[in-house]
């Protein structure tokens, strides 16, 4: 049965098998470990070759594989073996983490035992005399032990010891790789589950824009399964409404790998209808050259609907705010004018009763002026009620009306200096008009000014609106913006990319300037 010293070729053959097995996903660990004990038993001609593996939870070394055991009852006994840490030859090997050989196991004093006679008895009973025991050591921990036993006393050669060590090392390597592989698979499964559960479709494409991966969510999004999409180009799902945008964006990602971008576009559903989506894309660079792009696609149908509703609500709210403002304006202007007229009539009646013709005439003159002012204000307010008036008559005419109304109501001399040859874009006129209105409102309410000027002037890059007064001023840093409607001005201006600057200091008046950039700056009249 003794085959003698195994050849290098024998050893090399098995090692190659283990190394091949280290390629992930093709490993069959139980088969490999069984082969390890089979080969050990065969090559060394021993009476038993056993692998004990450490149980991670209990810390015990448990029988896992055996070969070469002739007696069935001995085999059965060996297979029940569960060794406490430190127990037996296996425990010794694990403690030392090196190959241990013994010629007479039962009498070996290195083996821990509280009953040497019993140890001897068990060894004799199971037929364990000489042994080589090699640890299976992984990168982080001991994994188990490979033991070979003989019934007869035998002195093992260095080559035999080396063989067992090599088998043990490769078995350890196989176990490690198998575990890493399991972890990798588990991690992959986790990511896959994540990909499958996320409502966003995840995609990867090569540098031509051809899909190399698409997650399952794509099917609910565009009606094509990942299998149907793979190998197709982005254009397969691009909707004609945004196809140029998608090309431009993907080209950007390819040109700027590792940088992310998010953009909105329409995809074409299998049935042809456009699906509004938001695409996230990041170019992938490998070894310095662009290798494609990855990203996700989010369905924006619901969000687009909500955005539409929100916009409708916002404009409704704006309209209702506008109505509240108009009611306030009516109250501030026309109501006060009419009240003043009743008081003036009261005065006129008294004077008339006294026969004071000159006094009565003076009151009638005041009445005529009040009536005139009230009419002008009514016209201005009716103008407000018809947004198209601003469109029809233009910013300058609208500002002139408004300035006249404020002047009549408050007695503050407000001057309009407009130097515009033509009209401005509709939204610019609307924005500047509202800002001028708000700013004049502030002047009247807070400034205690004796003079205010509204100026509209062309500048090189666009147009500028300035509202200036000589009133009490304020500290822009200390004032609560909301209170003065300054925030509202900023928001309005921001929509046009315009800039609002506020210059004011307590006691030194206030100057608000709004600069709107325009592609075609208007000319001046002067």
């Amino acid at each position: 049965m003794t085959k003698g010293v195994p050849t290098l070729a024998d050893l090399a053959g098995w090692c190659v098998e283990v190394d091949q097995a280290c390629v992930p996903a093709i490993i069959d660990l139980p088969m490999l470990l069984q082969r390890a004990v089979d080969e050990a038993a065969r090559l060394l001609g021993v009476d038993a070759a056993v692998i004990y593996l450490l149980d991670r939870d209990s810390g015990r070394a448990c029988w896992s594989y055996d070969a070469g055991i002739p007696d069935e009852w001995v085999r059965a006994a060996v297979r029940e073996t569960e060794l406490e840490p430190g127990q037996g030859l296996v425990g010794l090997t694990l403690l030392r983490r090196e190959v241990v050989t013994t010629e007479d196991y039962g009498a070996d004093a290195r083996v821990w035992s509280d009953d040497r006679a019993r140890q001897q008895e068990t060894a004799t009973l199971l037929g364990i005399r000489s042994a080589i025991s090699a640890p299976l050591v992984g990168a982080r921990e001991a994994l188990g032990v490979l033991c070979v036993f003989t019934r007869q006393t035998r002195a093992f050669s260095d080559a035999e010891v080396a063989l067992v060590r090599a088998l043990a090392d490769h078995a350890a390597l196989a176990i490690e790789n198998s575990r890493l592989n399991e972890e990798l698979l588990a991690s992959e499964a986790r990511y896959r589950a994540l990909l499958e559960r996320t409502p966003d479709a995840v995609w990867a494409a090569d540098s031509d824009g051809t899909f190399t991966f698409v997650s399952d969510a794509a099917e609910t999004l565009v009606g094509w399964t990942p299998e149907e999409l793979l190998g197709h180009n982005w254009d397969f799902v691009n909707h004609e409404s945004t196809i140029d945008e998608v090309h431009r964006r993907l080209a950007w990602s390819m040109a700027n790998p590792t940088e992310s971008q998010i953009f909105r576009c329409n995809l074409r559903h299998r049935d042809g209808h456009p699906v509004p989506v938001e695409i996230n894309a990041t170019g992938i660079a490998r070894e310095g050259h662009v290798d494609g792009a990855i990203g996700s696609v989010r369905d924006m149908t619901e969000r687009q609907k909500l955005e539409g509703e929100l916009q409708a609500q916002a404009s409704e709210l704006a309209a209702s705010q506008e109505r509240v403002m108009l009611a306030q304006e009516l109250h501030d202007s026309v109501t006060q004018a009419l009240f003043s007229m009743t008081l003036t009539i009261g005065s006129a009646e008294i004077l008339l009763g006294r026969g004071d013709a000159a006094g009565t005439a003076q009151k009638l003159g005041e009445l005529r002026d009040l009536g005139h002012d009230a009419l002008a204000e009514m016209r201005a307010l009716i103008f407000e009620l018809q947004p198209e008036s601003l469109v029809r008559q233009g910013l300058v005419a609208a500002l002139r009306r408004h300035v006249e109304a404020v002047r009549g109501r408050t007695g503050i001399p407000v001057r309009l200096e407009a130097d515009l040859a033509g009209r401005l874009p509709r939204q610019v006129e609307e924005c500047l008009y509202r800002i001028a209105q708000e700013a004049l409102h502030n002047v009247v309410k807070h400034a205690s000014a004796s003079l205010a000027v509204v100026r509209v002037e062309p500048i090189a890059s666009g147009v500028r609106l300035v509202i200036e007064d000589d009133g009490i001023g304020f500290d822009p840093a200390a004032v609560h913006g909301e209170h003065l409607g300054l925030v509202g001005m900023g928001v309005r201006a921001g929509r046009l990319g315009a800039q609002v600057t506020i210059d004011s200091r307590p006691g030194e008046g206030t100057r608000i300037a709004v600069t709107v950039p325009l592609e075609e700056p208007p000319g001046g009249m002067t």
Partner: protein
Amino acid sequence: MVTTPSHDAEPGPRCLIVGPDVRVRRSLAGLLETSGLLDVIGTASGVIETLDLASSHRPDVILLDLDRPDADAWLDLVATLRDLCPRCAIAVLSTASTLRSSALAFGADAFVAKTEPAAAIRDAVAALLPGVAARSVEPEAHHLAVRKEIES
């Protein structure tokens, strides 16, 4: 703006008119002076102006038109004026009758609804004047009376 007393040779109670609308201030001053009830010694629209005129001219009557969006803030001014001129009669005018109770709570002597006809408004101001005369004679007694009113 300080207007000179009207036709009356004998100086009447001196009045300060405060309000946001220049036309209301003017027509109110016109009505009260034409009626011969009061001499309007000034009109004001802002807080600082109001406090300036009240402390420098010590008017007998202050008429405050609180028809303005920030009327609540101006109620505080009523209390301030009350402290500044304890002997002065303060009347609050507004189209909003909801302001009546708070105006009185903040120390106004009367609330005049601007929805009333001109004659009624004139009469409401006239009704304040006997109190002004009484206070200018016996300020201490008036204070005692006010305190008693508050305590009860």
